[in-house]
């Protein structure tokens, strides 16, 4: 552009001058980037570093840093500067924290966060300001639904997806004709149950009863007695963290695991297997990642992560890593020039990520389209038993709500 036409002569000559300068710089061993030479890309890490979600927060940052390290410490020749903020998984502080990053620190991209309530607060600001935003965990539907925006991407999952995958698995089992669902009654719990029902009812199954518990109540005994009285062919449960650990233990101790198989989205057994002892043995869940994925990419990722951080990576670390890969893909397309935002966004939209989880690309609403695995608890692993749904897209209702 601008290479011909006499009226553009002055610009041409300036470009020529820059090119020459860049060539000299190149000889001198300085990266030849014409625009914003030497400027680092500022990335705001708004993640939980304290509180119940501290471990996922740290795993996400580690994953991102691993991707950067593997790229040679720079993405497409561009140096990266990190600015960290602890979001404490505290929704009431979300707006202040994200404003600090966007307005005061003027970051070029924010990576965050784990907690959906906090992520919702972040989106309100990033959507308006247009600053690039990658969500590395928070799975609430509207992030890539009604709240979607060109500059907002998600590298993790949507809650609906992992529920839907289990619905597909259950609808293919002739012995499972009716299921009882049990979950916390809050936004995420409702999305996990909706996903399951969308697939399972369509496949001809029947949900005998939906049991709900106020969040974050962990007194399950009364509802377990309900399940025992109804005698369904399977129980589909969503809880997370400490609540999931307690539920799985209570379920086993009530003797229910013998007669009513327990299934759920992956988070039912994620990060709690050491805590529940053998109580989770045989529980089946669906998620976009799991233990024992024998792909070369995953092996290399796990080895690299363990070597760098002396820790085993988990599903959170994968999302952090993929956030790095996604940004790298975008920056490569614009040769590190992050000022070309429209081109950068386009490249990120079309990126095909070779993720440790398997191939991943983004939907029009910027939510991952990826395989979901059926996993079975063996010892203290969520062992992958096969693919539940290939290249699963998001909830059609959410995608329809996304206008951009």
């Amino acid at each position, binding site marked *: 552009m601008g290479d011909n036409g006499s009226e553009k002569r002055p610009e041409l000559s300036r470009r020529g001058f820059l090119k020459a300068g860049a060539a000299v710089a190149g000889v001198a061993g300085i990266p030849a980037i014409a625009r914003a030479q030497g400027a680092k890309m500022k990335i705001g890490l708004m993640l939980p570093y304290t509180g119940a979600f501290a471990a996922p927060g740290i795993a996400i940052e580690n994953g991102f840093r691993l991707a950067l390290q593997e790229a040679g410490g720079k993405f497409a020749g561009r140096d990266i500067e990190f600015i960290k903020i602890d979001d404490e998984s505290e929704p009431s502080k979300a707006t202040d924290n994200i404003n600090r990053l966007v307005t005061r620190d003027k970051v070029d991209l924010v990576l965050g966060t784990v907690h959906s309530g906090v992520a919702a607060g972040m989106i309100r600001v990033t959507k308006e300001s247009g600053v690039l935003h990658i969500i590395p965990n928070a799975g609430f539907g509207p992030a890539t639904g009604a709240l979607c925006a060109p500059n907002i991407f998600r590298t993790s999952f949507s809650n609906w997806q992992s529920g839907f995958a289990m619905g597909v698995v259950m609808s293919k089992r002739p012995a499972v004709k009716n299921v009882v669902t049990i979950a916390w009654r809050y936004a995420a719990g409702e999305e996990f149950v909706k996903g399951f029902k969308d697939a399972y009812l369509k496949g001809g199954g029947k949900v005998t009863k939906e049991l709900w518990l106020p969040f*974050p109540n962990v007194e399950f*005994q*009364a509802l*377990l007695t309900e399940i025992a009285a109804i005698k369904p062919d399977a129980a589909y449960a969503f809880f997370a963290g*400490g609540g999931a*650990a307690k539920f799985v233990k209570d379920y086993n*101790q*009530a003797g229910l695991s013998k*007669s009513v198989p327990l299934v759920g989205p992956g988070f039912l057994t994620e990060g*709690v297997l050491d805590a529940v002892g053998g109580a989770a043995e045989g529980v089946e869940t669906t998620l976009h990642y799991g233990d024992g994925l024998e792909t070369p990419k995953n092996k290399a990722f796990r080895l690299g992560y363990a070597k760098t951080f002396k820790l085993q990576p988990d599903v959170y670390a994968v999302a952090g890593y993929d956030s790095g890969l996604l940004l790298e893909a975008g920056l490569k397309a614009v040769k590190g020039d992050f000022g070309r935002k429209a081109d950068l966004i386009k490249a990120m939209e079309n990126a095909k990520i070779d993720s440790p989880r398997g191939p991943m690309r983004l939907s029009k609403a910027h939510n991952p389209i990826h395989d979901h695995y059926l996993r079975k608890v063996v010892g203290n692993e969520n062992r992958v038993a096969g693919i539940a749904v290939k290249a699963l897209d998001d909830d059609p209702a959410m995608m329809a709500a996304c206008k951009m």
Partner: protein
Amino acid sequence: MEFSTFLIQLLNGVQYGLLLFLVSSGLTLVFGIMGIINIAHGSFYMVGAYLAWSLTGAIGNFWLALPAGIVISVLIGMLLEWLVIRWLYHRDHLYQVLLTYGLILVVEELRSVLWGDDVRGVDIPKILSASIPLTENQSYPVYRLWISAVCLLVAGLMYWVIQKTRLGMMIRAGASNREMVQSLGINIQVVYRVVFAAGLTLAALAGMIAAPVSAVFPGMGNHVLIVCFVVVVIGGMGSVKGALIASLLIGLVDTFGKVVTLAIGGFKVLPELSSMTVYVLMAAILLWRPEGLFGKRL
């Protein structure tokens, strides 16, 4: 609902109620006798659970971890009373709320530093790990029955100490007139220290014995704290007997509120609004008796 299911739910309700009593009795004791509102009570429930986890891991035996945890809790209680609580006796309730709220933050942070943020679990001791079959597909863990037995034992013990012993006499006297008891030559400072340590230990004990059936996780005390306050308000501030009755009431209302189907005029009330049943009960009782079931007349 079938009759057998009804009976099991009854058992669930009573069992939950007894555990609630164990946690909330310490709160009502400290308030009734010392006039201290201890917002950090739930945190000590969590501390108890973490003690059970770390001590069982270190000693290798739950039955040895339990007494060790009790001793540690008593010491923590005495230390805290000496360090912070004793400055509150002559102050307004607002100061007490502020200071004990600060304790919550300190305890949470210490927990994070000492034990980390992961979800932990404690195995049920072998001798109690059996289950009793109730119906063809549901069984009841013996450990849960044992919890109920411990709670009843503690309730009896508290009644005996407060009503029948010399220490109990001093405690009761101190509750009604601190200055008079002091002028009679009783060291009320020591009595208060014992009472606060006892209250904290009761919460920690509840956390310790609940740890094997529950899981051990950050913030596990917060939910318990709110229900404890409901128990204390319904039972009457400072009444141990009231706490027992109120705990059982809440246990039953909460249990049946989750499973009974009730609709009024086409509007589904239960179980849709089960999260409110306990609070509706509290409101109703307060309308009828503002001082709670066994509280002193206001």
